[in-house]
């Protein structure tokens, strides 16, 4: 990495970080993996059951439904979050008047906490005073107004929409930086050859941006797999279990039901799903383009 010769004193510079990271990441991480092999309620009487927790998890319909929900969450996030960000960024590829205003405005929600955003959307979704229902009634679409977060069929979609709204600006900024790095000659050459705006988008913008879009899609997938804040603040998994996702179920299993063994098995599974989907997506989509 560097060019200076190593000497023992250098190890001292790594020691504090090593100690902190080992104690507060490696230790709890290994304990999670290890604990998932036990039937354990947090007290003394832990009983080794091998992969028993995982076998139970594979039959736990609430957990499996939760995985289905985050898969839907990831899919919608990729389409609407990455998609919208890509469209907005390619529109601002060339500087146009007002560009700084738009960039600034799109990024505003990104700096706000998920808790504040969730609270704000609980107000927005409110059937009595919420901006959404009031606006719908105002334009004569009152029949579309709903109690979004307490309707079993709509609550999940209402929740998923919030992180999409919240982080479009983040993805927009990442993609915008990449779009502006695409050599302008590519666009000019294609235009001289008679390519229209759509061709430019599908044949130049998207292929040139693919590595960055890959990163964005992976970020969207992992964010969905570990989604917790929005659900927990807005619905706590309800109504009933209509918005329960693996992370909120894990939280309840450990901190309410005190099933530490089963809960850590969930924690390990969430980690594995995030890891495998990241690696699989990268492998599959990189292979195809080479």
């Amino acid at each position, binding site marked *: 990495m560097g060019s200076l010769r190593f000497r023992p004193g250098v190890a001292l510079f790594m020691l504090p*970080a090593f100690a902190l990271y080992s104690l507060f990441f490696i230790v709890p991480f290994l304990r999670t993996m290890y604990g998932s092999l036990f039937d354990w309620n947090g007290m003394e009487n832990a009983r080794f059951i091998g992969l028993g927790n995982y076998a139970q998890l594979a039959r736990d319909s609430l957990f499996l439904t939760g995985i289905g929900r985050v898969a839907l969450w990831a899919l919608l996030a990729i389409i609407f979050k990455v998609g919208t960000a890509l469209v907005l960024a390619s529109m601002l590829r060339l500087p146009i008047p007002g560009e700084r205003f738009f960039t600034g405005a799109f990024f505003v929600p990104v700096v706000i906490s998920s808790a504040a955003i969730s609270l704000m959307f609980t107000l927005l979704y409110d059937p009595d005073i919420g901006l959404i229902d009031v606006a719908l009634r105002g334009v004569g679409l009152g029949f579309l107004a709903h109690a979004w977060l307490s309707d079993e069929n709509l609550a999940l979609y209402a929740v998923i929409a919030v992180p999409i709204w919240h982080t479009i600006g983040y993805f927009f900024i990442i993609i915008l930086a990449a779009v502006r790095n695409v050599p302008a000659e590519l666009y000019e050459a294609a235009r001289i050859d008679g390519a229209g705006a759509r061709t430019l988008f599908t044949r130049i913008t998207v292929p040139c941006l693919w590595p960055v879009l890959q990163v964005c899609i992976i970020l969207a997938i992992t964010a969905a797999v570990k989604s917790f804040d929005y659900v927990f603040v807005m619905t706590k998994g309800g109504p009933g279990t209509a918005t329960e996702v693996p992370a909120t179920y894990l939280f309840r299993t450990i901190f309410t039901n005190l099933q530490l063994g089963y809960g850590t098995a969930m924690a390990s599974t969430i980690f594995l799903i995030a890891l495998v989907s990241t690696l699989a997506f990268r492998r599959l989509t990189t292979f195809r383009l080479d």
Partner: protein
Amino acid sequence: MHGLAPFAVGRRPRLVARLRRLSPLVAVYVVLVIHSLLTLFPLVWVLSNSFRKNDAILTSMRLIPESLQLSNYVEMLHVTSIPLAFFNSFTITLASLALLVAVALPLSFALSRFRFRFANWVFMFFAAAVLVPSVSVLPMTFRLFADLGLLGTKYGIAFVYATEQLPVSVFLLVTFMRAIPQELDEAALIDGCGLWDLFLRVVVPLSRNGIVTILILAFVAVWNDYLTALVLLPDQENQTLSLALAYAKDEYFVNYGMMSSAIVFAVTPMLIVYLFLKDRLISGMAAGAVKG
């Protein structure tokens, strides 16, 4: 009359061509403006409601309040735990950032300036945490806190925040420090300057920009965190802003005006930071994403 005809004929296609050339731009502006409105409307609506009492909010929707009453704010500051939580968020964030810099800087210095066999392994070791969602580790961090007697303390969580931010910070700092010319170090060492001096007097001052970037990134992440605080700060007197907001929602939700004022109060510091550091914040967060 006849004299006008060629003029009109000549002008018409030019106008059509101009419109055709302009219309994609018009479409672009329409999309950009609509998205800006969708982004800003909810925020303006909350800001407006924070100055209105419930009876006004229940009767009409307004993006500009009737008057600038501060009664919601006064009530929020008295009734809820948000002012205390604001103070807690501030001190906890400060402690976490100090700890982060104290451990990330020396590590990045060692990794970026010295040649040794295990450098890449060390790097990978510290990068591994990026792959693990914090929700997967936090229950056992909670147990660890109980074992170490850190549960119920206010600043114990700073260890975890610093750990969570360590991988990305080290990534960015190492990249940054590698760009500093290495000849400088050798010259300094030949002049009899010790490792510690090299670190503190040469590398750290030259990494100022990188340090500011990781501080901004970590500030946003720690200040906005909800989950880690939810698990590790069970005592109400240690609550951070995110926790207090969620708690206030469960207690006082139907007091819409006061809830709105709580949101505004909680997000204003971040928006001020954003206003002053917009470009730095945006480029820092973009870099953090691509590295992470």
